[in-house]
């Protein structure tokens, strides 16, 4: 029954909103943008209580779709497990991507406002704001232009983007992460002390796992046989045992706890009951 109802609704939408091309498509897109702006500012006019109720309803419906799609019984159609809502998985995925892109716009707006104020008022650190604007505009410009068909100009765009992306961003990220190695070594040297039995046990385990990760460590017990009882004393065997027999159950236990917590949190967010830093005190 549910399937028939959903099929009828889907068929009505397909009849009423057939795929468009050319000028009609552009006009519809422009209309949707105008509608989006009107709705956005319209929502600002709502009273906070009404706005929160609206958000709660939309959040609930969005969560309900995936819950129902998962729990409703399925039947095999064209070799795929399908129920009444399965056909909407792809449109929902596209919708989620559109919402994510809107969030990107919100992020750019927020950064522009913060850095714009710093730059215009020459506050401390204005130079960093200038750097931010320069590279955001450059990356966006050459990132979009690189999609153009092959030509001499497109090649120049590609080269500039390559300098910015490979020569700039990637090199900077790689450098930043490499520097962490120095801090890790320094921190390990300062923090690891055999203050008590637990710390000693931790250190012994860390040494075995570290040595098991590299050939220099494996070399130490290379003289032991690879099979039989004595093979258990090889450093890589001990390291593997620690990771698979001690570490894995511990991580699994933590995972169970996290899973239960996540389920509770998901339910609270879905039902708009959550309170805290990112949520208002009252709904």
């Amino acid at each position: 029954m549910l399937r028939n109802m959903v099929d009828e609704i889907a068929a009505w939408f397909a009849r009423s909103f057939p795929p468009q091309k050319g000028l009609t498509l552009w006009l519809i897109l422009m209309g949707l943008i105008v509608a989006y702006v009107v709705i956005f500012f319209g929502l600002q006019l709502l009273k906070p209580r009404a706005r929160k109720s609206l958000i709660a309803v939309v959040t609930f419906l969005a969560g309900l779709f995936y819950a129902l799609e998962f729990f409703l019984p399925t039947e095999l159609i064209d070799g795929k497990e399908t129920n009444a809502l399965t056909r909407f998985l792809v449109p929902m995925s596209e919708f989620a991507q559109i919402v994510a892109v809107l969030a990107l716009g919100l992020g750019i707006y927020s950064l522009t406002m913060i850095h714009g104020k710093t730059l215009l008022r020459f506050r401390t650190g204005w130079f960093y704001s200038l750097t931010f604007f320069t590279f955001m505009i450059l990356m966006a410009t050459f990132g979009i232009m690189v999609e153009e068909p092959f030509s001499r100009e497109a090649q120049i765009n590609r080269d500039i983007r390559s300098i910015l992306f490979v020569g700039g961003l990637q090199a900077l990220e790689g450098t930043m992460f490499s520097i962490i190695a120095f801090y890790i070594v320094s921190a390990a040297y300062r923090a690891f002390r055999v203050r008590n039995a637990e710390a000693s046990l931790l250190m012994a385990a860390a040494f075995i796992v570290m040595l098991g990760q590299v050939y220099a460590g494996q070399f130490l017990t290379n003289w032991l046989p690879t099979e039989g009882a004595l093979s258990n004393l090889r450093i890589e065997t001990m390291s593997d045992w620690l990771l698979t027999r001690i570490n894995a159950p511990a991580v699994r236990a933590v995972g169970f706890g996290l899973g239960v917590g996540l389920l509770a949190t998901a339910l609270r967010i879905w039902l708009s009951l959550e309170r805290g830093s990112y949520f208002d005190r009252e709904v």
Partner: protein
Amino acid sequence: MSILEKLQTIDRRIVYLLLFLSVGLALIPRKPLPVIPSNQARSAFEAIENAPTDKLVIIGADWSASTRGENGAQTIAILHHLMKRRLPFAIMGFDPQGPELVAAEAEKLAKRYNYQYGTDWINWGFRPPGTINATLKAMVRGFQEGMKQDSKNIPLSDHVRLPMMARFKDINDVGVLVVVTPSQTFESWVAFVQGIKGTPLVFCPTAVMAPEAYQYLDSGQMVGMLTGLKGALEYEGLVKEPGRATAQGLALSVSHILIILLIVVGNLGYLAQKRRQKSQQGVG
């Protein structure tokens, strides 16, 4: 304070210099070290070695330049194996840099192995990370519907320019999943892609992320794992393509030994200080 006690307060600049020199010097010799592949690397190798050639391999490239040292080497080793076996593959990712970085490596190797874009391999490109679950759920049901187009904006339904997409429709046509990531995105791949048909999943994390994944190996949801640079080094040995990881193997060993030595030295100083304090208390 005795000399022994001073060992626990070595200036951090000396520590930095020791690391810089030891790793720098260890990178000079090019002779590869003997490798003993772990069970996880061997299983990963076997999963790809036994993958049917008429099935697609999906590479989830959720990494960026920051972890290139580990994830880059793993990816190249895996690509060598895929191309040697002439396995068709698709690249996708939820990190803006991931698919582009992997595609760049694939392009370099494609010339050597005569791999054609659209026929033997494809780059589905980047999707927003916030939509990972929804995107993967849609993707497994149908690549054309779920992914729509590749990174060059060619529709996946264009079988003239992308002939391989005529052969591969959905998760039923996938032989192996390879997820290369330093983040938690692998959990979504396990839940929403591997779990659908039990497709073999090979995981390539950074070394620091590996301990979190052993439980999935235990449960069989992952068939193999390449642990950081060490995993890449082992895989290069297994596919007999010594590369970046093999060249860095000695540096990896030396850096680990240096950390262990520094911890031992620091603790010698700590124990000496503790002994002196105890004896002073005894005298007092």
